[in-house]
């Protein structure tokens, strides 16, 4: 199974829905709430996000090496289906 990690905001309802999606699908994930980090840590995260392109928009979800920015369950489904198929 692909590793799932994400950057989120504690104030963002779509980040909350994204976490719930992975919980409901029994897929382990790690997350970091950007807004609750120190300034130094936020700057590191900002660099990482901008290096992959785009703005500082959340949720920012890595499924394996694939990046999905935003609440997009159809895209999560698609990437997880590939992940499940390759694990067989």
């Amino acid at each position: 199974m692909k590793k799932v990690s994400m950057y989120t905001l504690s104030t963002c309802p779509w980040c909350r829905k994204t976490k719930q999606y992975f919980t409901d699908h029994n897929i382990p994930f790690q997350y970091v709430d950007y807004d609750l980090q120190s300034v130094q840590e936020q700057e590191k995260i900002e660099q990482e996000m901008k290096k992959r392109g785009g703005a500082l928009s959340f949720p920012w979800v890595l499924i394996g090496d694939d990046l999905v920015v935003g609440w997009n369950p159809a895209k999560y489904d698609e990437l997880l289906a590939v992940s499940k198929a390759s694990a067989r």
Partner: protein
Amino acid sequence: MNVAARKRSLRYFFAKVVAPLGYKFTPDNDLADYLLEQESHLEEAHGSPFCPCQGLTQNHEDNMKIVCPCIPYHREHFDYMKRCWCGLFVHKDVTDPDSLPQISYEDFRKAKDARGSGEGR
């Protein structure tokens, strides 16, 4: 700060600002209420009602582009999605906001480039 009163003020003010842009509040009242509450808290903590779904940085100019309603700074991107990033506002013709996924700026730009032009950010 009285959060309930501030939410009412923001709702009144925002409605007047977004209507001429072709937007309205999301018909999802629970979502709108939650987002306005978060914006009230962000305003109290950081001085302006920033978007709850975009990150603040140490760059003041960048931060000003995510003060709600931030539609004018992201007009083409949001018009493409028919919603703003956090979903507080949707195009006036939208009745089912759940049908509108968030589309990243990168994906929007790729789609736009494929059609032959780009948006400055």
